């Protein structure tokens, strides 16, 4: 197995996630795309962990999984709050803080 094949898979997933964040209007879909991005980073960390023969990458991957879980929890709570106040979660409509 080559190092580059895992890194390339991570890059492809990362770019698909970035596309999702940019293109999607629905807030839940944007959160899903962020999950794609975080997973691609995890893939890179584990590949480098194997490449350097150390377990540090595994530790970081576990930390990232925990951070992602916290992020989804808070993010969905915010989405529910926005939906309750405005009856929509389309990100285009949330423009009060626009300069």
């Amino acid at each position, binding site marked *: 197995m080559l190092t580059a094949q895992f890194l390339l898979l991570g890059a492809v997933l990362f770019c698909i996630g*970035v596309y999702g964040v940019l293109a999607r209007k629905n807030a839940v*879909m944007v959160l899903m795309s962020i999950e794609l991005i975080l997973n691609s980073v995890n893939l890179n960390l584990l590949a480098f962990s*194997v490449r350097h023969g150390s377990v540090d990458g595994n530790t970081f991957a576990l930390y990232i*999984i925990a951070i992602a879980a916290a992020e989804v929890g808070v993010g969905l*709570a915010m989405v529910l709050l926005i939906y309750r106040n405005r009856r929509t979660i389309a990100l285009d409509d949330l423009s009060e803080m626009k300069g």
Partner: protein
Amino acid sequence: MLAADLLVAQNIGFGIIALLMVVGALRVVTVNNVVHAALWLVVVLSGAAAQYLLLSAEFVAITQVLVYVGAVMVLFLFGTMLTRARIGAENDLNNKNWKIAIPVSLLMLGVMSWVIVDGFRDEKLIENPGEMSQVPIQLISDDIFGPYLLPFWALSFVLLVAVIGAIVLARKD
């Protein structure tokens, strides 16, 4: 080069799983039904867990299945069902200017692939495939409770704040 050094079975497995993951990820960002997108995300996350197994990181793979496929997906489905009355296909999931995102992400992909291919070329992940053994969980815990103890504390605090914040945000009063 010896046949054993090529790891044919692992490479075939990697290719199949990688294809599944890329197709699933593309469906996540293109399908026009939120529940279907969540289910395609399950495919991608399970594929990621399988790749972690190929990288001999069993503990991370199991945590991935437990946390992502188990907990996060349930959260997503709850979020979907609580924020819309009907569940089905919709036409307005994309921004007005969503087409701009295609060249942006393709440009990023081009630059990243160029750097990766230029930097690693045909470097092997591990010189001696026979040495690739599973990561002992004891080493991971020594790592977490040794040099990375401070980030672990910070992480515990972040989780506490996230739990309290989610309750405060979602409470009705």
